């Protein structure tokens, strides 16, 4: 049984072999997908062909070549265009509820279920 388990564990980690050793490269299209095309209706820069989107793609490429990190690029763009441009809101005081509340619901729900089960176990 132990050997079997170890084998499974080894296999499990083998899955992430590629992942672990892949070099850290900035994914340009991932950045594009996180940027709203400000002149379009609900479209990301990645999906849009507008002049704005094309310009922004060039800007992003430029910033990457300058050695900026993903977060620095977002910082730069949101300073320039406002937070409206980022599809993934920054984790700051104003957005804290947005990021925390879903997990709070998850936590409270879990506690309620745990409470119901414990009540049962005590009875037995």
């Amino acid at each position, binding site marked *: 049984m132990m050997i079997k388990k170890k084998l499974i564990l080894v296999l499990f980690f083998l899955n992430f072999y590629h992942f672990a050793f892949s070099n850290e490269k900035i994914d340009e299209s991932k950045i594009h997908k996180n940027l*709203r095309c400000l002149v379009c209706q*609900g479209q990301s820069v990645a999906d849009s062909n507008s002049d704005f989107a094309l310009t922004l793609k060039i800007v992003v490429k430029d910033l990457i070549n300058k050695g900026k990190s993903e977060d620095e690029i977002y910082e730069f763009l949101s300073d320039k265009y406002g937070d409206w441009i980022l*599809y993934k809101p920054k984790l700051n005081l104003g957005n804290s509820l*947005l990021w925390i509340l879903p997990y709070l*619901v998850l936590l409270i*729900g879990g506690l309620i*279920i745990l409470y119901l*089960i414990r009540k049962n176990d005590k009875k037995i």
Partner: protein
Amino acid sequence: MLSNVGNFLLCLNIFLSSLIIHYSFKFLKSSSAVIFRNVYQITVIQSTLVLICFFTLVSAFLISDFSLITVYQNSHTLKPIFYKISGTWGNHEGSLLLWVIVLTIFSFLFLISSKNHPKNYRIYTLIIQNFLILGFLLFIFFNSNPFSIVIPTPSEGLGLNPILQDPALAIHPPLLYVGFVGSSIYFSAALASMITDYSDKSFAQSIKSWVLISWIFQTLGILVGSIWAYYELGWGGFWFWDPVENASLLPWFAMTALLHSLLVLEKRNTLYFWTIVLCLLTFTLSVTGTFLVRSGILNSVHTFANDPSRGIFILIFLSLMIIGSICLLFNKYKPTKDNFNSNSKETFILINNWFMMFYLATVLLGTLYPIFTDALSENKISVGPPFYNSVIIPVVIIFLFFMAFGPQARWIKSKFSNYRISLLIITGAILINFIISFFFKSYSLISNLIMISSVFLIISSFLDIFKKSNYNFSRIISHLSFGFLIFFIGLNHNFSIEKDFNLKLGQTKKIENYNFILEDLKLDQKSNYKSVIGELYIKNLVTDEKKILKPEIRIYNNPSTLTYEASIKTSFFRDYYITMSNIDRSEYYNIKYQEKPFMIWIWISVVTLSLGGCLSLFRNAKNN
């Protein structure tokens, strides 16, 4: 003429709904059979008249009666007949009429199919449902009247928004409305059950079919909407976490939770109040969704018609509904002695509800948060796909495991006996994921875990087919489909290919293993649009495979709009997807080429998911 007929029918319907409410209350006092027959007959007349009212509007669209402002604004004589008809519900006023139809027909069908249940419970359901009908009829009549006339009568209409002139979008609203509005009947029934203290398992049986029906339609409605977004928007994606899409997803989460908790109420006679909350929540979310979409406070790709005054009405209606339900709930709530064994079906169903509430909270928050920050701090933020993906996807991994384990458990109490089998299945899932990522392409940690958990769910559900005990085919189909859905979405996400380049007529471009040739450009003239059709040859240099795709640029005349039509070749393993757009002041065209693996399997998974619901519906009908 048609305007008068329509207005008359609307008034008559308002009168009939009031009459039903009046007689129903009278019946509650005296409970005579004569009054009950009256109520029943008026309900029949009411349903018939609502249908006639709707067909009056359809015929106005068919004969292009532009004296009606709705027809004038949304139709055109040159439009194909099919889109003249679908134009009826392609606008705010007409779609509200469809909304009332579903309310009325469901009210009637509930009345005739609930004969085995207490009369007072049925009558209260009817009363509440008719208050809803009345509310919406008044809204239609005074604020969004589809039969309002325009003077002088215009000779030609303004036409329907071209991206709505599409077969998928013609059937999308009716499907979604049956789902959305269908949930009204168990909203009414839930309130009625609290009023009449009809709170045992037979209440669960009385609404089960309705929950299933609305769930099936909601699922299919969402599917058709996302197929439409896939080929019409031309971005190659099928789900954008757009506020309007979210509005259709929110009631779906609540329905799915309800579908499961109803089983506990039916089999174990507990979780009554939680089930009631879910019933109320589902319809409330449906109306909220309508409010968000119609009032136009959401920024969305799908916002076609909106007007603030409508928003205020729906908001008042919604507030009354919520306040009323909450008051009644607090009034009737008694703490119950729910307790569950940690390894029982009840507990796993609660776990399903737990996750559904998490998804619901996340999507609701993500949809509403930008509105609040905008109003409170004037700081406009966007909440888009990267937010939802990063919050929801890690949780889905755990959810899929529970979804595989849950059905193995029995009611009340069971033992962990399949420990060894589970270990074997997880080994298999890991192995399959390893093979995929090793031989094809490696992907991120989260993707690995998603693949492993979805394969785990698929194998577990598949093995359930061969188990004699605890056999429930509709459940197996739905869980299996959901596993496949996530699995194919995972593959689709990780193995999509996208190329973006510019071409001019006759030019060849070589990208990696492909040769792209823009062979020809053709002009085409249809009754409602002109188009430029590109003929693109794609040659795979490795396999020597050749394909021709024909993306279009369409110029619609009424109203004049430019749209880009994707050309899609669907095959067993992947979709080839091309859009072409013109570049200003240049002879070049921008070409976006995408390969989307297993697209068709994503659609099929959703269809079989809802098929599970259908099977359950048939079994439920047979048992009763």
